[in-house]
């Protein structure tokens, strides 16, 4: 029987084909390229499912796969640069998520774009396909260079799609901002990639030849030769240098996953079509950053400083973004800040050693955030592209499918039991707590994350109540446009998943009852081969976490289960409190704005803590003058030299040309003189005379 692994490259190639097809022939196709995209992503999804089943061990004994696809170049006595495939539990899970969300987004786009008679659809579907392609290839990348390449392609696609309506004012500007801000982070990432290649001579993520393992050797075991040489050349200790490398790569992560302080592009990115927002936020661009940390987790575990920084950034971003989400008036803006905040949780989990928790939250978040965005898209169709929540209200009766699925997503986001978000967020906080008890930094990060739970519950349900409950507050809300099956189908699928996906890893229930139902945990633990040979399994990570990173679990109230219960009760209680407050303030027939009560804080929040302003100042006040100076240097000195050289060349060329007089006796003379000169010079040098 053929193995699914042989077909893994096709998961990414199919959308690439549909990209070409949509771009070249989209104009003449019945749905302007949508069908090509749907077929391609459904194909990707099927292969992803097949792959996941293979990784699970249902279809044969080989459960991990690593292969080189194409080699760009091999240096002599140094590294090779190649494209390769690495499929392990983590990447197969991510492939599944990305291809599922892609399919649903394509279907939804039929309703959001085609039914609304948008123009430029082939371009839209081509970009969307390229987006899926880039992300899928990023996910199965086996080395950091390939990951970087597709990371950049993902960035390019987000640029194309956020600026899709390029004739309006805001989208192109938002696209530029997203591109530039993430590029700023990627700059550090690129240096990190170069650094990793220079240090280890390889960019492989897995196996004993991979750089995480070499780094581990350098710290705990015998120093691999080349790494030792490099370190002594740099003049730094292993851990110190690895921390620098980790932080450099983290620059890219912070940019893409919209973590503080590079989160500013994400709210603006709402200018893109809503299905694109769903794809960016749930499964592709923003997820790429967190996924990268998870992918090279074996490396990050070696540097406790980086882990602490990741946890702090995560916890702070979770809280910081949540506070801004509280005062937003537009539906998608609330969701945008919630995305930033939720990815903060994932970073918090990764930083505090909760690998499973982070992947779990990544999974559930992908589902419920895609759901919320698509739900918001449905509302936006109904409201004729008015996104202001104060103009909505009472949509509950008019659009029941949207309402109930949106509610399911909101409950998941707020973290209400038993919806998906509860289980994953609870695990994130639990991991942060037990690991934080022994480390004050992690505890601070945990506290911020916990506080954000309350705010999350509040802003989520403020959004739900303002949008769907109460009386309609505008004419459009009185009589919203209806949506078709192609909107309702994705919502239905995701609505059910948002309610149930959390069951894949009900740790509290598992711990209390002793049932082995923490499936995701077992999934990520992986088989023997994964831990022994490929070194990306949880069993491989756990000892490093304890011994190298020095992160150990400790418990309060006398043991694991009480701690677990306290943590769950705390987060659920805070979430419910947030929901309750939102219910008191906004679940009334005629809600009014309460933000004035915040006083000066409101202005600060409305202006997003002046983050944009200071970044603009950095760009205009600092970078621009520097760039001007560089330009002067370039124009005056560099170009001057180049122009000088070219005029000298042309002038001397002209001289050379004149030697060619056309008189053959001159030639014979010059020829003889030339030969005589050579003879004399070499005669003197060689001592012939």
């Amino acid at each position, binding site marked *: 029987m053929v193995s699914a692994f042989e077909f893994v490259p096709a998961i990414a190639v199919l959308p690439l084909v549909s990209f070409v097809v949509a771009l070249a022939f989209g104009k003449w196709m019945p749905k302007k390229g949508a069908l090509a995209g749907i077929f391609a992503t459904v194909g990707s999804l099927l292969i992803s499912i097949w792959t996941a089943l293979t990784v699970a061990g249902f279809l044969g004994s080989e459960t991990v796969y690593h292969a080189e696809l194409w080699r760009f170049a091999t240096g002599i006595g140094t590294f090779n640069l190649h494209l390769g495939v690495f499929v392990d539990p983590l990447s197969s899970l991510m492939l599944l998520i990305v291809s599922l969300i892609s399919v649903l987004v394509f279907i939804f786009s039929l309703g959001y774009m085609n039914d609304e008679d948008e123009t430029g659809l082939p371009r839209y579907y081509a970009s969307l396909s390229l987006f899926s392609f880039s992300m899928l290839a990023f996910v199965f990348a086996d080395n950091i260079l390939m990951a970087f390449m597709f990371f950049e392609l993902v960035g390019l696609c987000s640029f194309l799609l956020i600026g899709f309506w390029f004739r309006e004012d805001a989208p192109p500007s938002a696209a530029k901002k997203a591109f530039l801000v993430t590029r700023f982070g990627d700059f550090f990432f690129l240096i990190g990639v170069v650094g990793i290649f220079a240090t280890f001579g390889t960019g492989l993520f897995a196996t004993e030849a991979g750089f995480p393992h070499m780094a581990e050797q350098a710290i705990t075991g015998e120093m691999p030769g080349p790494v030792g040489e490099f370190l002594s050349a740099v003049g730094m200790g292993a851990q110190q240098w690895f921390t620098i490398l980790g932080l450099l790569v983290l620059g890219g992560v912070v940019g893409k996953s919209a973590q503080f302080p590079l989160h500013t592009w994400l709210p603006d990115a709402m200018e893109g079509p809503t299905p694109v927002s769903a794809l960016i936020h749930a499964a592709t661009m923003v997820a790429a950053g967190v996924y990268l940390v998870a992918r090279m987790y074996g490396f990050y575990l070696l540097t406790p400083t980086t882990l602490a920084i990741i946890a702090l950034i995560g916890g702070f971003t979770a809280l910081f973004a949540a506070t801004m989400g509280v005062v937003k008036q537009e539906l998608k803006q609330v969701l945008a800040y919630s995305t930033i905040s939720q990815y903060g949780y994932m970073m918090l989990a990764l930083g505090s050693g909760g690998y499973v928790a982070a992947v779990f939250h990544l999974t559930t978040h992908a589902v419920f955030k895609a759901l919320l965005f698509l739900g918001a898209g449905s509302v936006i169709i109904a409201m004729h592209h008015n996104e202001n929540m104060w103009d909505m209200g009472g949509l509950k009766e008019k659009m029941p499918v949207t309402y109930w699925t949106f509610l399911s997503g909101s409950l998941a986001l707020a973290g209400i039991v038993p919806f998906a978000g509860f289980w994953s967020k609870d695990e994130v906080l639990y991991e942060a707590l037990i690991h934080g008890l022994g480390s004050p930094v992690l505890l601070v990060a945990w506290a911020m994350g916990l506080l954000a739970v309350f705010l999350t519950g509040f802003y989520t349900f403020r959004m739900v109540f303002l949008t769907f409950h109460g009386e309609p507050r505008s004419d459009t809300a009185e009589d919203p446009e209806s949506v078709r099956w192609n909107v309702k189908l994705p919502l239905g699928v995701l609505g059910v998943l948002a309610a149930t996906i959390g069951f894949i890893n009900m740790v509290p229930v598992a711990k209390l009852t002793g049932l082995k139902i923490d499936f995701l945990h077992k999934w990520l633990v992986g088989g023997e081969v994964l831990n022994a040979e490929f070194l990306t399994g949880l069993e491989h990570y756990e000892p490093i976490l304890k011994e190298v990173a020095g992160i150990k679990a400790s418990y309060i109230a006398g043991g694991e289960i009480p701690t677990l219960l306290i943590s769950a009760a705390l987060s659920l209680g805070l979430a419910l409190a947030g929901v309750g407050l939102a219910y008191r303030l906004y679940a009334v027939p005629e809600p009014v704005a309460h933000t004035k009560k915040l006083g000066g804080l409101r202005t600060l929040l409305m202006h997003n803590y002046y983050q944009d302003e200071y970044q603009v100042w950095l760009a205009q006040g600092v970078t621009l003058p520097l760039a001007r100076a560089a330009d002067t240097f370039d124009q005056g000195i560099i170009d001057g030299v180049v122009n000088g050289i*070219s005029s000298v*060349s*042309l002038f*001397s*060329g*002209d001289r*050379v*040309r004149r030697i*060619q007089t*056309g008189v*053959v006796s001159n*030639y*014979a003379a*010059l*020829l*003889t*003189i*030339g*030969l005589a000169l*050579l*003879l004399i010079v*070499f*005669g003197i*040098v*060689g*001592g*012939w*005379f």
Partner: protein
Amino acid sequence: MIPLQTSNTLPDWAALAPAIILAVTALALFLIDSIDPNDESPSMLAGVATLGSVLAMVVTGWYLVAGTGMPRTGGAIELFSGQLVVDGMSLFFTFIFTSVTALVCVASYDYLSGRPNQAEYYALVLLAATGMSVMASANSLATAFVALELSSLPSYGLVAYLKNDRGSVEAGLKYFLIGAVSSAVLAYGISLVYASAGVLELAAIAEALGAGIDNTGVLGVGILMVAGGFAFKTASVPFHFWAPEAYEGAPAPVSGFLSSASKAAGFVLAFRVFVTAFPLDVVAGTIDWALAFTVLALVTMTLGNFAAATQDKVKRMLAYSSIGHAGYALIGIAVLTGTADQSYALGASMLHLFVYGFMNTGAFLFVALVEYWGVGRTFEDYNGLAKQAPVACFAMTIFLFSLAGLPIGGGALSKWALLSATASAATLSAYLLAAALIVNSALSLFYYSRVVKAMWIEDPAGDFEVSSYPTGLYAAVVGAAIVTFLLLPAFGVVSGTAFDAAAALF
């Protein structure tokens, strides 16, 4: 494929089959002409000439694949008491000569239509090609000289083929006069080497020199003069003066023939003679010829490119750029010192000449096509040509960018191979050569892209109509373009043969 020697299906002399086929074809053309001297339809002549060169090319290709004369089938085949030798290098270069000859014969069918004396033209082309393939096999200074003359004498006639064109006749005469001077230099050089060594066979010379030399001065002058004689054939400074005039005045297919095949023939002779007869360690006390070639390479590439940059006629620009490329190819023999991977360096030069054979011939054939249309010779005359002949202009774009070293054809990789050869030598002079190669390539991009710009971007100045699309010229141009492009992905196939052939020499 059956290796020739191991199976013993063919006698040793059959290894010379390519040269024999070329010579027989030339004689057959004379025969046809003597039977039917007033043949106004050139199809027969062009057909026979093309057939002969293609046949020679196929046989050479077969030998290359089968491994004739290569170490894996028993090593080089020596003929006539070691006067001639057939090995990987001679076959590799014969393949260049025969394929260029085939392209030129195909293209000449249209170019010559309506002109008299076509039989002589084709016969001279094939005789020159015969001379070149003998040059590739020459294993003693005597045969080398004879072969060189065999390829040179028909060339003089070919350059002057357009009897009623003043430029052509003048160019032919100048070429002949400079050729005569150079031959004299070469012959004198050979006599001085003979005076020192007492033998003419290449390997024997090395042996004799290794045993001890009485007068280093005589030998040194001799070696340098031999180098000068070869420099004439490769159009290297200071023996290059004939080149711009001859290339410009000659019929464009002949320019392509001379600047690609004839140049390569000069190189193969230089490679074999200097590596086999004057190994650097043997003549170290007399002359460091690698240094001499370094100087020649530097001056040749710089002069060629700088002069090309200021030309206003396309054909003359190509002529000077051809001098520049001779400078690049000299790198392979100039870095044979120090730590250099010698077979790699030599192989890199061979590869550059191989790729050059196609891209440069193609470029000159495009010029032939333009001359056929009567468009004009300057850059401005090429304005807007792409609107009327997009296919040919596309092919020309491939040639020019490949010549400049952009990765659109094999030229990028062969320059890269030359660069890495200098890197492996890692001496000061090698780095100088590398720097000169890079700077000159950058400069060459300037003047090559002038043609591209004229063809694709500029609007036509006057209005001319491209009246016809000659099949033969088009076939040759497009065929050369396809090979040039294919050499990019298939470079590895050719490079293996080249490096092996070069390695067999050391």
